[in-house]
């Protein structure tokens, strides 16, 4: 909701896309009050809103699932246990169909990613101005409530997956096996001279492919959620003007939100499946 006519559209949008940032300032550590201050903070700045909402949603997931796990019975399940089991069974099916290695971490990893990403994405369905407006009343001026529209969050997860992938690649195939995977493909030869000649080319191609994994993994989620959030913001711009525009804006918000239910679920699912596929690549020999 554009607060009266004092805020222009571009200011409104920019305001919505600015994180609540905590970091080193000229006069000690504190919360930034403008985009310029954030830029000055550099690497040691921290997005309090992304951290808060991502940890809150993650903790909610862990709390609910561990509570259910503690009470889990193999007899007749309660409705909540049935719900949890449905998700766990769904993840288990996916992991068993795409992951051929033997590793206990993959299934819980996939479960955590699916639920966590879904819940972070779900924050997108909360009316775009609601939480920022409430927080504005108590003096917090910047708020981005959807953690997955923050590349730090998506990269944090994808790099975490990437490191696990490197770790298990080396653990399963050995350092030599992993190195040969990076240098002996796609150009192969039995001639030792040609092999050495192909080595840098292969390393370049495979290296790009390797680096592209966490980048595409996180940017896919980030891009989808950022664009979705952007559309919510753009539609809500209509609320500032005439009554007819406001009503049609409300209808558009609803339609986009309904469509977005599909998007957030799909993105969480894709992130989870890609994680499982990457882990499978780490465990499979060529």
């Amino acid at each position, binding site marked *: 909701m554009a607060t009266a006519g004092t805020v222009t559209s571009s200011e409104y949008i920019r305001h919505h896309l600015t994180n609540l940032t905590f970091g080193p300032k000229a006069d000690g550590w504190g919360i930034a009050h403008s985009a310029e201050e954030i830029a000055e903070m550099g690497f040691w700045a921290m997005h309090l809103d992304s951290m808060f909402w991502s940890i809150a949603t*993650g903790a909610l997931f862990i709390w609910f699932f561990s509570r259910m796990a503690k009470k889990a019975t193999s007899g007749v399940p309660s409705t909540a246990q049935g719900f949890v089991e449905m998700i766990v069974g769904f993840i288990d099916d996916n992991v068993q169909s795409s992951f051929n290695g033997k590793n206990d971490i993959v299934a819980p990893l996939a*479960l955590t990613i699916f639920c966590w990403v879904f819940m972070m994405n779900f924050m997108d369905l909360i009316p775009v101005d609601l939480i920022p407006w409430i927080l504005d009343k108590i003096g917090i001026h910047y708020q981005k409530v959807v953690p997955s529209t923050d590349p730090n969050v998506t990269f944090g997860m994808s790099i975490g997956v990437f490191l696990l992938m490197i770790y298990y690649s080396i653990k399963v195939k050995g350092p030599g096996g992993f190195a040969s995977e990076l240098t002996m493909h796609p150009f192969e030869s039995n001639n030792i001279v040609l092999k050495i000649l192909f080595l840098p080319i292969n390393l370049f191609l495979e290296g790009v492919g390797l680096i592209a994994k966490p980048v595409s993994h996180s940017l896919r989620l980030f891009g989808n959620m950022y664009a979705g959030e952007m559309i919510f913001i753009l539609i809500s711009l209509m609320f500032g003007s005439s009554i007819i525009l406001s009503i049609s804006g409300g209808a558009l918000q609803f339609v986009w939100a309904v469509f977005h239910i599909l998007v957030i679920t799909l993105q969480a699912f894709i992130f989870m499946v890609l994680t499982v596929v990457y882990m499978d690549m780490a465990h499979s020999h060529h």
Partner: protein
Amino acid sequence: MNINVTLLWQMVFFVIFVWFSKKFVWSFIIDAINERKTTIADGLAAAEKGQRAEEEGLKTAEQHIADAKSQASEIISKAEKHGTELVEESRTKARTEGERIVTAAQEEIQTELNKAREALRAQVGELAVDGARQILRREVDASAHADLLNRLAAKL
């Protein structure tokens, strides 16, 4: 869109959540699911087994009934046969008994007849002697002519 220390924190929490999920969530729930799966599978197998046993029991019961029926009819036919045999036997027995009685009676009659004839013979002898005595008017020595008289009596 600034990449900053948030990323590192995010990675830390990512690891924590995954660890939590592995340690306190996954195995408990998947174990419960798998345990229930085996319970259900066992139950279904047991139900199928029970059904098969029931069918088999029904079959044996039918077999028993059929056996009992055939046995009963066998017993009945045996009894009928035995009955006719008994009747036949008693009939034969009665006939032989009757014949025996008739024979005995005939024999008795014969004996009686013989006896009567004997007595008659003796009396006739005496009568003849008496008559002869009277006719001859003379005393005939009965003892002297006993031989003759007996011969006469035997001729009668």
